[in-house]
């Protein structure tokens, strides 16, 4: 869309005559191809030749969304033509492909393949994901389930590859959720456990991958529900997760991704309105014990990290939650709160207005 992260040359770039001529030639080439494709489109030419022309043009400019629309119209016509040629004689109910379906499968597979190098070149282009999604929907509508499943399984390895290249790619993580949901539906299974393991692997490779922590947090309730976990298992999961994140926090208390996950777990101890905990039957005294433990653990982190604003922020947030559960507070004094807030104000001058508001709210 816009030029993100393209360096500006230090010296005003003056194009050489040769570079200028070359650019003009490229413009001519692009314009004439574009005119030709638009002419075909205006004539409603839905032939294989027209498809090939869109291939050329969209390779030069994958953001040209109208071309993807045109391409889909052509593909739909080609699917239909094959239907008209006969061959769809009841075999669609079985796993074997009818001649028509073979052609449809070839067209879809070829287009899925065509998209792959474009993805790696333009990982943030919405239209590519959009078109891919459409192709797979068509596969599901037009092909036997087992063939569609095979295609979706291919997607899982593609998205794995994409995320290994850019582990925070927004589209990549979103697409992973789509693929998993589809595979679960087609196979009537629950993949929460293997996905959970996947997040462990990704997090161990890079602790600060918040996308993976986020995904993990969302998987836990599904994982527990899928195996109809009893209350002991649920408590164990909560404790295991706290252990996992605390280890990470000791490694790097300055990493906000980790605090995000810690906060998510804390909110499972003290669920807020409208949000359910994955351990829904905690008693009030269990809540207090857990919160107390985590509060103390957080406080311990200060040792050697006295300048870490995240710790003060967490202490103040958890203190507020604690006060809501137990107004008779033995865990910290008003003086503690005052001290933490002062530290925060000193360390985090970007958000002075926020800490001033908090000061008023806590009545300090």
């Amino acid at each position, binding site marked *: *869309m*816009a*030029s*993100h*992260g*393209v*360096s*500006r*040359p*230090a*010296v*005003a*770039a003056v194009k050489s005559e040769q570079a*200028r001529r070359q*650019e*003009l030639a*490229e*413009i001519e080439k*692009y*314009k004439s191809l*574009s005119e030709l494709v638009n002419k075909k489109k*205006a004539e409603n030419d839905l032939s294989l030749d027209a498809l090939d022309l869109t291939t050329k043009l969209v390779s*030069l*400019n994958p*953001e*040209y*969304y*109208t071309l993807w*629309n045109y391409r*889909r119209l052509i593909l739909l016509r080609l699917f239909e033509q094959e239907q008209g040629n006969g061959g769809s004689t009841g075999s669609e109910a079985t796993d074997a492909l009818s001649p028509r379906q073979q052609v449809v499968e070839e067209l879809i597979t070829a287009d899925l393949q065509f998209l792959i190098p474009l993805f790696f070149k333009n990982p943030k282009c*919405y239209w590519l994901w*959009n078109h891919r*999604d*459409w192709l797979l929907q068509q596969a599901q509508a037009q092909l036997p389930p087992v063939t569609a499943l095979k295609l979706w399984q291919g997607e899982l390895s593609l998205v794995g590859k994409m995320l290994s290249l850019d582990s*925070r790619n*927004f589209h990549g*993580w*979103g697409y992973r*959720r789509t693929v998993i949901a589809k595979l679960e539906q087609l196979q009537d299974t629950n993949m929460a456990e293997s996905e959970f393991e996947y997040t462990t692997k990704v997090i161990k490779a890079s602790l*600060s991958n*918040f*996308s993976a922590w*986020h*995904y993990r*947090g*969302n998987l836990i309730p599904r994982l527990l529900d899928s195996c109809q976990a009893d209350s002991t298992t649920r408590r164990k999961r909560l404790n295991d997760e706290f252990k996992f994140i605390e280890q990470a926090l000791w490694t790097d208390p300055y*990493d*906000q*991704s980790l605090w995000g996950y810690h*906060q*998510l777990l804390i909110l499972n101890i003290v669920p*807020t309105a409208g*949000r359910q905990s994955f351990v829904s039957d905690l008693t009030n005294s269990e809540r207090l014990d857990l919160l107390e433990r985590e509060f103390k653990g957080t406080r311990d982190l200060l040792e050697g990290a006295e300048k870490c604003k995240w710790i003060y922020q967490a202490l103040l947030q958890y203190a507020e939650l604690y006060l809501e559960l137990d107004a008779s507070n033995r865990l910290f004094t008003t003086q503690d709160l005052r001290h933490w807030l002062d530290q925060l104000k000193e360390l985090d*001058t*970007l*958000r*002075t*207005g*926020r800490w001033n*508001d908090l000061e008023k709210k806590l009545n300090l």
Partner: protein
Amino acid sequence: MSLVAGPGRGGLGDGQFSQNPKLCVDKHVAYIQSLDQRRDELDYWLTEHLRVSGIYWGLTALHLLGHPDALPRDDLLKYIISCFCDDGGFGAAPGHDSHMLYTLSAVQVLVTLDALEEFEQQIPRGKDKIGRFIADLQNRESGTFAGDRWGEEDTRFMFAGLLALSLLHLKHLVDIDKCVQYVKSCQNFDGAYGVSPGAESHSARVYTCVGTLALAGRLDAADTDALAGWLSERQLPNGGLNGRPEKLEDVCYSWWVLSSMAMIGRLHWIDKDRLTSFIFQCQDPENGGIADRPGDMVDVFHTHFGLAGLSLLGQPGLAEVDPTYCMPKQVVERVLNG
């Protein structure tokens, strides 16, 4: 008419930015005016799919800069109308298919130019046609919106649809309660919003969700303090804002983040001076325009969102921007109250 292509050429190297930077109003005006004259650059042709939005970005930036008439009004209007499609939507350029994103940009431009009547003279019942196009893209079960007839759904399209309908006084054509429900389902534990239920929080998605709530008159549905806390953490030591934890700063987030904070009344939770100074340093002081980060190529998208951000920060010399509509406040007031 193109206001998209052409990142500023040249400019200054690192280290030459920070000496007493100020807002280069005239340079930005000249930069935007120059954008339509760059047909000898390949980028001009490769960005045709953004033309209508480019006009919206450029025109809005000029209004904020106090030069609303710096582009020929008749040409803009003619161009926008030439992008109208039979189905009631607008394409990005003549001959391009209609899409929600460009329909919103076109409506924003028509409204900013105060040209809805002229539009209807040329396209009888044009406003109703646009309203119908948008309303037909709502999924009546989930409340979500598709971007076009091909069906990709996204909170961007929900917000864009509501925004355009609001400018046309046609919000009643869609189910707004369903929109609010869907926004709620996109809310994460951190109070912020992702692109769909379960997706990680992202500043630009926060803008579309909070904007939807604002248009629905349901900002009470947001978890204000948690959300504002998350948004405030987007500011990095260099003053710039990022889109998600542990990502790089970028001028366009000055808009997505700030506008959301303004809508929920928490603009004071970040350091305005340091953000202002960051945006200033992203200017090309020689050729005009604003880039994503200091030292990068400028473009009209970042120029627009940088200026809109500065306007929210109260920058003297800039017209006030409306945080929900991302249009000059004066224009929005004229339309909504007129």
